[in-house]
């Protein structure tokens, strides 16, 4: 029977949660890298045994860990992330120029077909690639070097490149998103980039429909239809049907359109999930009710999913990298909270169960569907 392996990064280590395809009984292992912040752990689509983890701390900075056996053992690999050339400046919170400074890796995106190739989205916003299994890292500098780069500003969480999507159909096409610069697209494997933010409206910036400056929180796509992109922006849930050339709002009847994660059902490209959060100041669910919202129509029309989720006195957040889907026949949906819970729905969101309740604050959740 096939199974799943959930990779949870938390404020104080990583955890690996495994189950068979029923997703009822779980084995919890960890913490790995105990005491360190683990922003992200992700497995290679080409080799499920190959995992990469981003481990960092205020004391000792960035470490990248690699496992070749599905998380049973780990070894540190390369951790030198040097911006190419003279890094230059972006805007600081007070509007002054601020030198680009590497802080940490937010997101690791392994290649679709080569386990030794992996991309890293970092703070301050930049994109790096390793072609040797994480031993060494080279910047793809044209993204950070885009002519708008000196005007980018950090969001409250830092100026991070947090989303990397690899197009499985059009070779070399990839998408990235940066808080608070916006969404970007490359059609040549990351050699050149252009902003793709037409249609976004952000009241928090001087020109609401500016080419860059939008606080995009997350992008998602279904692999069978990479021209269709979904976006959770700081405020607003958005959709593009043309690879990001233009966007339209699909917030519809959501109770609030602020939030962080967004994801797509593994077998239904028009079924989308978000977790509405009250506001940018109130990072918890409206009315203290933890509700995932699902649209089966590609947006606009949303239904709350509540069975098994706390419906009173719940004031956790769900961060942007903390939702994932498996590819079993009955698609599983997963998310983690800042309260340390990791929830699973083995039935596409109809019902939920906590896998674990008391981890450190969950920063990221990924899932691997195992043969």
């Amino acid at each position: 029977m096939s199974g799943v392996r959930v990779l949870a990064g938390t404020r104080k280590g990583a955890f690996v949660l495994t189950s068979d395809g029923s997703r009822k009984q779980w084995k919890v292992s960890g913490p790995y890298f105990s005491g360190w912040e683990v922003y992200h752990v992700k497995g290679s689509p080409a080799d499920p045994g190959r995992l990469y983890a981003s481990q960092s701390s205020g004391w000792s900075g960035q470490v990248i860990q690699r496992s070749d056996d599905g998380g049973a053992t780990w070894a540190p690999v390369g951790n030198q992330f040097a911006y190419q050339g003279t890094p230059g400046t972006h805007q600081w919170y007070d509007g002054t120029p601020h030198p680009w400074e590497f802080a940490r890796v937010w997101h690791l995106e392994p290649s679709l077909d080569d386990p030794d190739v992996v991309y890293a989205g970092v703070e301050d916003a930049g994109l790096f690639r390793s072609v040797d299994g994480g031993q060494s890292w080279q910047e793809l500098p044209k993204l950070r070097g885009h002519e708008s780069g000196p005007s980018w500003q950090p969001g409250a969480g830092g100026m991070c490149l947090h989303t990397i999507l690899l197009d499985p159909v059009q070779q070399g096409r990839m998408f990235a998103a940066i808080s608070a610069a916006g969404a970007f697209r490359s059609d040549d494997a990351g050699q050149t980039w252009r902003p793709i933010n037409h249609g976004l409206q952000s009241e928090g910036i001087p020109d609401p429909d500016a080419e860059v400056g939008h606080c995009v929180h997350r992008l998602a796509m279904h692999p069978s239809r990479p021209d269709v992109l979904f976006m959770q922006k700081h405020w607003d849930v958005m959709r593009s049907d043309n690879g990001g050339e233009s966007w339209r709002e699909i917030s519809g009847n959501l109770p609030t359109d602020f939030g962080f994660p967004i994801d797509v059902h593994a077998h239904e490209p028009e079924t989308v999930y978000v977790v509405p959060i009250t506001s940018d100041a109130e990072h918890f669910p409206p009315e203290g009710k933890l509700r995932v919202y699902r649209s089966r129509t590609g947006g606009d029309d949303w239904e709350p999913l509540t069975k098994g989720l706390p419906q009173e006195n719940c004031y956790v957040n769900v961060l942007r990298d903390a939702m994932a889907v498996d590819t079993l026949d009955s698609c599983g949906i997963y998310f983690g909270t800042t309260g340390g819970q990791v929830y699973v729905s083995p039935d596409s969101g109809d019902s939920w169960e906590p896998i674990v309740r008391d981890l450190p604050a969950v920063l990221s959740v990924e899932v691997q569907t195992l043969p």
Partner: protein
Amino acid sequence: MIRVVLPAHLRTLASINGEVRLQITGPVTQRSVLDALEARYPALRGTIRGHDGGPRRAFIRFFACEQDLSHNPPDDPLPDVVAAGTEPYLIVGAMAGG
């Protein structure tokens, strides 16, 4: 033989049990000790100071003989008792940063 004591999180990272003992050829300085340490344990590169001998990370401190050496020039000689292995060279996670 130089004795080096690392904080727990770095001992775990580099799979080190107890003190590290290093043989240094030439002057015993903070730089030469860290160079030797990183050569033996490459996983520590970038976690104590910048890569390629860069500056000390903000929340890492260097102590020896009840003195804070963190702000001393990296090429200053370490105390004779450290060079002789009588006293350890302490790499400490500052009371901040975590």
